[in-house]
């Protein structure tokens, strides 16, 4: 009898950080454009950024996280990636 192990990788998070100059409506528009989330989800994420200073906007494999992070930076938001704890 052999034991099978499923190796699970911790996901990578895409984080967006708050700043004092970016209009809230712009953050919502950028989230909608890049992730295709609903208006409600984009607004909730934007409010999390605003109130908590940061929000995890996407999680998954590193390559896609890096790609989304670049798209957010190209749109002018402060974004980084981090491995989930």
């Amino acid at each position, binding site marked *: 009898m052999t034991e099978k192990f499923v190796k699970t990788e911790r996901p990578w998070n895409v984080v967006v950080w708050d700043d004092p*100059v970016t209009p809230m409506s*712009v953050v919502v528009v950028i989230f909608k454009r890049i992730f295709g989330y609903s208006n409600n989800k984009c607004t909730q994420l934007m409010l999390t950024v605003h109130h908590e200073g940061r929000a995890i906007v996407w999680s998954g494999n590193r390559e896609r996280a890096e790609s989304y*992070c670049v798209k957010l930076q190209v*749109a002018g938001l402060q974004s*980084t*990636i981090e491995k989930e704890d």
Partner: protein
Amino acid sequence: MAGNRLFARRRDGRVEVRLNEAGRTVAREAFGRVVAAERDPSHEWHAGLNSPIDPSEDIDSPVAALDRQHEISTNAELAYMTLNEQFLNESEAWAWLSTFQIALRSTAVANGLLSEEKLSACEPELMNFIRTIQQFLFGLAECF
């Protein structure tokens, strides 16, 4: 209020630019500075365009960094080339929004305006530039 909007989405899908000459001069300055900053490592906005992707690494992936540089340059050059247009298509309007937002954040980073307190204490001329770009962004965001 509709008559005072700086940008308007038309029924044919294009975005109408209603900026006067003074507004287009501010847009020219903002877009031109993003184009220059992407090319010049000593430009005061350059650091703001090259923030870390993965802060836990000493160096970001060169492919990701190049991709970012290419995309920012493409958007800024497209925005600059369409400065005098009355109507923008979808890609052009997105290039304007992205480049205004890059200009806004780069201004904040270059001047250390990373908190509400610092922002409210900044020079009037700088504040005026920031408020103007924010107004442009409010108007453009309504078109998406």
